[in-house]
């Protein structure tokens, strides 16, 4: 059995994920409220609203409070000279190996939420797949990008 990768991502990732989740949940709650208003005016049965509210509460609790923590704990990565090793997933864990010589290019990305916490994500593309390491500290992300790109510059194998 291989050891899981060593490095964790930035702890602020949890905050960023929470905010993202919160935005989605707010949209969801607005929809529920609209639904409730419609129900009130047209005197539809209240059962459906009740169910929607329960779903809303559970999903908000899970996606804002529970999942970011679990997801953060599971997210690991490690960069070796020959390959990249990534682990992620909450219920379904996956571990991915990407050989350096297969890497075509590396990007760093930063949306407004990640920027607020000085975070950035790194995307690694091979000719057939893409892999993302989300939410690293900005300087780590760019350092990682440069390192992978340097390591990937080994002599071209065919294709």
């Amino acid at each position, binding site marked *: *059995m*291989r050891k899981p990768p060593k490095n964790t991502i930035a702890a602020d990732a949890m905050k960023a994920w929470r905010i993202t989740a919160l935005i989605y949940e707010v949209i969801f709650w607005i929809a529920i409220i609209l639904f409730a208003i419609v129900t009130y005016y047209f005197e539809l049965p209240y059962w459906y609203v009740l169910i929607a509210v329960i779903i809303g509460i559970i999903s908000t609790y899970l996606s804002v409070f529970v999942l970011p923590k679990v997801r953060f704990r599971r997210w690991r990565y490690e960069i*070796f*000279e*020959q*390959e990249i090793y990534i682990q992620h*997933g909450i*219920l*379904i*864990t*996956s*571990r*991915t*190996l*990407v*050989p*350096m*010589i*297969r890497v075509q290019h590396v990007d760093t990305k930063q949306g407004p939420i990640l920027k607020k916490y000085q975070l950035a994500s790194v995307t690694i593309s*091979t*000719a*057939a*797949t893409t*892999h993302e390491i989300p939410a690293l500290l900005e300087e780590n992300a760019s350092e990682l990008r440069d390192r992978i790109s340097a390591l990937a510059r080994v002599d071209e*194998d*065919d*294709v």
Partner: protein
Amino acid sequence: MSKEQRLHPVAILFNFIKGIRQMIFLIIFGFVTFREDGLLYYILVIAAILILGLVSSILSWYRYTYRIKNEELRIEYGIFIRKKRFISKNRIQSIDLTQGVLHRIFKLTKVQIETAGSGNGAEVSLQAVKFAEGERLQNELKRGKNVDLEQEVIKPEFASYTISFKRLFVAGSTSGSLGIIIAILGGGITEIEQLIPERFFETTVAWVIGLSIFFIVGLAILVLIIVWLFGIAGTMIKYGNFTITKHHEEIFITRGLLEKKQLTIPLKRIQAIGIEESILRQPLGYVTLFAEVAGGTIGKGDDAATVLFPIMKKTEVASFLAELLPNYAIQEEEWTGLPKRALKYYLLRSSIFFLLASIVVFYFLPQFSLLPVLLLLAFIYLGYLRYKDAGYQVKGELLLLRYRLFSKRTMIMYHNRIQSFEKTQHIIHRKQDLGNMHISILGMMGTGSHYFLKELDVEMIDQLSDWYSYRDV
């Protein structure tokens, strides 16, 4: 050759037809709208458009020239805005000759030249040139890459396989997945018929029943036979005269009765070799051989992968590969299969849909529960087959995967062709020491081809990941 050349004048016709085809809806629509009043104007406008189309076809033919100069293929085109496209010889990946029916009448060919660049459509497509000219172009552009001139003259014996008529017939008659679908549909329709309000269908049903059951059965059989014959004809047309030849570092495939296609596959662009045994062919011991080739363009083949040979006996595969693709020659050895505890996942996955369907049908329409139950049994069996056929084999740098969706497939690939390796487990997997494996290689159009082996023993996956890993553990 440095003189500028034009395409064969028939290309004008091709351009013209293509232009009309694009406007066909407009023409029909216009006719429907203006047929009452203004028909005369309509005809005038159409005539003007046709003349304009013809003139522009002629002009664009006249302005389209190509030549080979300084190791480059140079193409100049465009009526008002001149465009030039130069492609250097050693960037050319493949040159395919295709002959449609019209081409064959005039002994012409279409030449498609592709570079590694992605995107749809060939980089250069010469609509119509004389066939000899096409072959000359092919040779000229090929030469100076790595093909030695001297060897060209000596003509070493090339390994070559051609499909026999008998085989082609077998291929056609077993291609009938369509027939099966129709048979199932036919069964379904008789069931649905019962659901439709009786009054609505009373007369029709009475009429059909009046025809007697034998007639209906006869009709159904007739339809099946016709579909089957179409399958045979389709295969014949597509794969007639199928010939595969190895020539230095490339493989040439010629196929097609009506539309003749010639494909070139550089050996080093082959990512994996696959052997497919479809449900109908497996009992007869026949397989289809195909290759996953990197790059290539949409619409080059109608299939996701390139067929290397449409049909052959399973026992012939080894010698075929040994001669054409010695790197991929394999001997059958022990496959590492799935552990017993994986079986339930496979049975559940393949049967869950029909299990639910059976329950629903049983509940609402108990008189028709036979059909879903039969399907359920068939799919449970399919699940068992999927479980039994899944497996892998590692031999040095080669990885062999075997799995089944409907057809059983064996993929042969090299370590250095695999782009990434992934192991996934969900909670129940973890408790039972199982895991899924996901391997990606390069496929057509740069999207990648992905292979999954589900519910492997976790220890086996770890062994495989050690095999794949470039780092010493």
